[in-house]
C-alpha cells in the first residue's frame, strides 16, 4: 500500500465516508465532487462503466451537470471545448480507439489552453484488436501538451481526479489534464476507498477558473484561434509566443502538481508522491522503474528481493507529462543500474516509451547508468511478482557489469 496515513488525521479526513468501489466508479464519484458544469460522454470499453456511473449520478440528482451524450469522442471533446470557452468546468473519459478518434480536438485543447479534465482508462490497441488494458493509447498522445498523471490505486484515482481540476485551472498552468487509470486493473478492480466530504472538496477546489484567458462571450468579444504563423509579418513571433507559453505551462505544472498534492495531504490526510515516488531507494544500489497499477506487484517483489539481500529499490513515475526530469534525476542519482518496465511499446526505438524518456534523464544525470527496457502487461496481460523478480534479476546483472541488451525484454512473451 502506498496510501500513507497521517498520525493525526484532520477533522476533514474524519468526515470521510469509507466505501468499496471500482476505479471507474471512484473516478465518477470524484467527478461529482468536483462539480463540473458539463460532462460529455461516449461509451467505450473499459471506460463504459465510468460514464454510466456519471450518467446515473446526474440522473439521480446527485450531480448537477449538463450531460451531453455525443455521437462520438470527436464531438465529446469538441462539445467540452465549446463549454469551456463559455466558462464551463468540464469532464470526460475515453480510451484507445476513442482517444485516437478525438485526436484532432485533443491536440487543439492544449493549444487553446482549456483546462478540460479527461480520464483515460488506458487500453491497448488498436490492432491487433484488443479491449484490454495497456498504456499504448495514452503513451501515443504524450507529445500533445496535456498533463498526464498515472494512478496506482483506486484511492489515488479518486483523489487525483479531484486534484486534476485544480491543476488544470491553476493560473500558471491552464492546460488540460489526463488522469490515466489502468484499464481492467483499476477500472474494474474494487477496493476500499475513502470518499472526501463535499464541502471540503469545494473548499479545496475553490472557484472555477476556466475561461478568463480565452472565451467566446458576447460580453467580451474576441476572435478565438485566428490563423497564426507563416513566415511574414508578426506570424513567426506570434506562433512562437503561443508555443513557448504552452511549454511554460507544462513546466509550471510540475511545481503546481507538487503544491496541489501537498495541499491535498494537508486537507484530507492522504499523500501521494506528485511526480516521482521512491520506494526503498535510499540505500539501493539499483532500481526498477514502474508506472501505474503494476507498481503494487513490483513493490511486493522488491520487498522479497530485499529479504533475499538484494539492494534494490523502486522508482515510480506518477506525472508522466510533463516529464519530471529534475525529480527523476534526483532519484536516479541514487542507483548504479536501472530496469524500466513499460506497459506499452515505443516502435521507433524498439523499447518502452518510458525507458526511452528515462534515457534522456540519464543524460542529464551526467553519469553512465546501465539500463534496460522491459515491456509487459500488454493487452491486459498480468504483471505478477515473478515477472518483477525477472526484472530485478536482469537489472542486477547490469550492476555486476553484464552486457547491456539493445533489445527489450518482453515479459509476457511465454505466458
Amino acid at each position: 500500500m502506498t496510501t500513507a496515513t497521517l498520525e493525526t488525521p484532520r477533522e476533514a479526513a474524519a468526515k470521510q465516508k469509507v466505501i468499496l468501489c471500482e476505479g471507474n466508479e471512484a473516478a465518477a464519484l470524484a467527478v461529482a465532487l468536483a462539480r463540473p458544469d458539463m460532462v460529455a460522454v461516449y461509451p467505450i470499453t473499459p471506460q463504459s462503466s465510468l460514464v454510466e456511473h456519471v450518467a446515473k449520478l446526474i440522473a439521480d440528482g446527485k450531480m448537477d451537470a449538463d450531460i451531453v451524450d455525443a455521437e462520438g469522442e470527436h464531438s465529446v471533446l469538441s462539445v467540452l471545448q465549446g463549454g469551456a470557452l463559455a466558462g464551463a468546468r468540464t469532464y470526460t473519459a475515453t480510451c484507445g480507439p476513442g482517444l485516437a478518434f478525438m485526436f484532432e480536438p485533443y491536440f487543439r485543447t492544449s493549444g487553446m489552453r482549456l483546462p478540460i479534465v479527461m480520464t483515460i482508462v488506458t487500453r491497448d490497441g488498436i490492432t491487433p484488436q484488443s479491449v484490454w488494458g495497456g498504456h499504448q493509447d495514452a503513451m501515443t498522445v504524450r507529445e500533445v501538451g496535456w498533463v498526464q498523471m498515472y494512478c496506482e490505486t483506486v484511492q489515488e484515482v479518486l483523489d487525483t481526479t479531484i486534484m486534476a481540476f485544480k491543476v488544470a485551472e491553476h493560473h500558471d498552468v491552464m492546460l488540460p489534464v489526463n488522469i490515466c487509470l489502468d484499464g481492467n486493473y483499476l477500472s474494474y478492480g474494487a477496493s476500499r476507498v475513502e470518499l472526501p466530504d463535499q464541502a471540503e472538496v469545494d473548499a479545496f477546489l475553490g472557484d472555477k477558473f476556466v475561461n478568463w484567458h480565452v472565451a467566446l462571450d458576447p460580453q467580451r468579444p474576441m476572435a478565438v484561434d485566428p490563423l497564426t504563423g507563416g513566415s511574414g509579418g508578426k506570424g513567426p513571433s506570434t506562433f512562437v509566443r503561443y508555443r513557448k507559453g504552452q511549454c511554460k505551462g507544462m513546466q509550471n505544472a510540475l511545481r503546481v502538481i507538487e503544491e496541489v498534492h501537498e495541499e491535498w495531504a494537508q486537507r484530507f490526510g492522504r499523500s501521494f508522491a506528485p511526480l516521482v515516488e521512491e520506494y526503498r531507494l535510499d540505500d539501493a544500489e539499483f532500481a526498477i522503474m514502474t508506472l501505474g497499477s503494476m507498481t503494487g506487484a513490483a513493490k511486493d517483489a522488491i520487498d522479497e528481493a530485499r529479504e533475499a539481500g538484494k539492494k534494490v529499490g523502486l522508482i515510480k513515475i506518477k506525472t508522466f507529462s510533463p516529464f519530471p526530469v529534475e525529480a527523476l534525476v534526483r532519484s536516479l542519482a541514487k542507483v548504479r543500474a536501472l530496469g524500466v518496465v513499460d506497459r506499452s511499446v515505443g516502435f521507433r526505438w524498439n523499447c518502452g516509451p518510458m525507458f526511452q524518456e528515462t534515457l534522456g534523464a540519464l543524460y542529464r544525470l551526467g553519469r553512465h547508468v546501465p539500463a534496460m527496457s522491459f515491456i509487459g502487461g500488454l493487452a491486459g496481460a498480468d504483471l505478477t511478482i515473478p515477472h518483477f523478480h525477472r526484472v530485478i534479476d536482469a537489472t542486477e546483472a547490469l550492476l555486476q557489469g553484464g552486457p547491456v541488451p539493445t533489445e527489450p525484454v518482453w515479459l509476457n512473451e511465454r505466458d
Partner: protein
Amino acid sequence: MGRSFNTIAFDPSKCDGCGDCMRACASVKYDSEDTSRSLIQILGRETDKGSAFELALCRQCGDPKCTTVCPAGALTKNGESGVIEWDGSKCVDCLLCTIGCSYAGIALDETTGRVSKCDTCAGNPACVPACPHGALRYVTTSNIYNEVGDWEDLFAPGLAGCQGCNTELLMRHTLRRVGPDTVLATPPGCVPGMGSVGFNGTTGTKVPVFHPLLTNTAAMLAGIKRQYKRVGREITALAIAGDGGASDVGFQSLSGAAERGEQMLFMVVDNEGYMNTGMQRSSCTPYGAWTSTTPVGKSSDGSHLSQGKTQDAKNLPLIMVNHRCAYVATASTAYMEDLYEKLDKAIQASKTGFAYLHVYSPCTTGWRFPTDQNMEVARKAVETNFVMLWEYTPDTGVHFTRPVDKPLPVTDYLKAMGRFRHLSPEQIEHIQKKVEENRRIVERLAENAHAA
C-alpha cells in the same frame, strides 16, 4: 447608411406593348385618354425577332442630374420616399432639367407647356396593377435595405472575398440580423478565408468568433450554447459553414447535434466544393462538374477520359429534414426576400432547437463564370429547378416557398458556367433526369405535408 427606395421595375420580355399602363397613368394623372401625356412611356420597335418594347420613365435616380441643373431649386429628391419631386411654384419652365436627364424621365408636356414626371403616385403607382402581363413591378425590397441598414454591421469593412462572391452579403446580413449577442463559428473555408476570425491577431468580426475544426463545428457550438443556457444567458449560437465541412468530414458532428436538438442556427453556404482551398470536389458537388479533383481528362489522342464528377450531389438539406430539425430551409441569394424570411424563421427556431439553413451560393472562381454573373447564375439554378427553394418545420412539413412550375431546361443553367462546359449530351440528360427526380422527391414530401 444611405437610404434605398422603392422603384418601378420593367421587364421588357413580358411586355406586349398593349399600352394599359400608359392609359392608366394618363387617366389617373390628367383624367385624359391621351397616352402621350402618360408619365410612363412604352415604345415599340421592330427587331429581327419581332417587336421589342422600351421604356421611358423617371428612374428617381439616387444621384439625380435633373435636380443639380435646375436653376430654380424646383426639383428635389425626397429623402424619405426617394421620389424626385417637382415644385411647380418654383419651376420657371426653362427645360434645363430635360438636358440633365439621360432617361427621358422628365419631359415637356405639350398640353401644359411645363415639364412632367412620374411621382410613383405617392408609393402606389397606377401603372403597375394596370399591366396585365406582370411586366411592371413595384419593387419594395428597399424596405429591407433601409431596415437592415440601421442594424449594426458586425463585420469589419474590407473582408477579402473573391470578386463577385455573395458570401460577404450573406455574412453581413446574417450577423446584422442575429445581432451582437452571438457566438459565431466559421469553420475552415471561404468564410474565415475572408477574414472572419482573422490572421495573426487581427480580426474582421465584432462578435465572439472562432475557427472550429472543419469536423466539429456543431459540437463546439453545442457546448457553448449549453453553458450559456445553464447560466441563464441568452445567446445565439451561429455557424456559417461551407458545404464540404458540413456534408463530408463535419457531417457526423452536424448529424449528432441535429439529432440531439442542440439549439443553434447552422447555415451552410453551399458552393458545391472546397472552393477556398483550390476547388476540390465535395459530396455536394453536382454530377458532371469539373473540380480540381474531378478534372476533365484528355488522352493524347484528344479523347476525354474523364468528364468531371461521376456521382450525384448529396442532398444535405433533405438529410437534415430527416433529422426532424426544428427548422430546415434552402435558400438562394438570387431571392433575398425569401432568404431573409427564412433567416428570421431559422433564428427563431434556433432558440428551441436545431435550425438548418442551406444557402446555394455560386462561386465565381470555382464554377468559372464572369464575376458580374453571380446573381444570374443563382437565379438560373432556381428557374431550372436545379435548386429548389423550400422549407420544413415538424408542424408544417416540407413546402415550396418559390415553386417553379415551368422550369427552364437545365442547359440554361449549365451553359452559364465553365465547370460544365465539357458535358456530353448523355451527361446533360443525366443531370436533367436527376433534376426531375429531385423535384419529384421534394414534391412528394410537400404533397404529403399538404395531405397531413
